[in-house]
């Protein structure tokens, strides 16, 4: 496989469209919630976790969406809050380790038929395919992604179960 400008361009275009669709609505929503102080009422459940990480309470939505939705959703939730460099570093380390990656990009060929079907039903259903259980952070997450790369990996993950 050699480098093809057209193919990379198409991948970049696809990614850009997904990023746009994700970031703009979520950013606007987060900004509205933040300005009208509604974030406090939503995120009070996650407050201990956020404080444990050293982040303000409003960043809890960003953490949760990074764990369950997408890295870009997490960035969009965290961007309007006006966090400092230290908080962004904390977010980067945490979300870099534990974020659920939207599997559309690279592994589309395995899920494409199903995705075409569900894309008409709604984005909430697509979240199911991007969903990664946050509790399985350390190595279950890893072979969850292994499973999606190659279905033969299912044998591998079964044999790895302690």
């Amino acid at each position, binding site marked *: 496989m050699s*480098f093809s400008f057209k193919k990379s361009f198409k991948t970049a275009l696809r990614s850009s469209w997904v990023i746009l669709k994700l970031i703009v609505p979520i950013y606007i929503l987060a900004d509205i919630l933040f300005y009208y102080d509604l974030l406090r009422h939503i995120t009070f459940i996650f407050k201990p976790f956020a404080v444990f990480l050293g982040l303000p309470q409003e960043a809890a939505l960003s953490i949760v969406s990074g764990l369950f939705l997408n890295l870009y959703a997490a960035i969009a939730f965290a961007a309007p809050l006006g966090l400092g460099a230290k908080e962004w570093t904390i977010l980067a380390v945490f979300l870099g380790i534990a974020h659920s990656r939207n599997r559309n990009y690279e592994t589309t060929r395995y899920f494409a038929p199903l995705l075409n079907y569900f894309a008409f039903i709604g984005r909430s259903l697509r979240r199911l395919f991007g969903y990664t259980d946050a509790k399985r952070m350390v190595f279950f997450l890893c072979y969850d992604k292994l499973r999606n790369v190659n279905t033969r990996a299912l044998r591998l993950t079964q044999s790895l179960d302690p």
Partner: protein
Amino acid sequence: MHYDSLKALILNASYEALSLSIKIIALVSLLIFVLDVIKAHPWMQKHSQNVNSGFSILVGVILGITYGAGILIAEYEKGILKKCEVLFIGTYLMIAHAMIEDTLLFVIFGANPWLIVGMRLVFATLMATLIAKYYHRA
């Protein structure tokens, strides 16, 4: 900051959201092209055929976990890696994968890249060693 009306707030938010999206799109597109060039390089193709165990970690750290995991599986099925090694590499990759793209996404907001990369590498080595040792004992 004080806005006069909801409409002003939404307009301002949309403007900022668009500018942020454009920044992220530029970064991601650039990364896609650069990584595609790396992936298509003949050195890469040659090493995919006869891999050694360090290759999957390298690929996972730089390119991203999907590609690293693919190479990891290929290496396991060829018999080059044992199960405990796969567990080690898997844990390592889980913590420290796709370092370039993920950290750059946060650096545009002003995070400290050295801290991010350093912490993730140190943490990955630590956790992977611990988990591999635990697996050996169990």
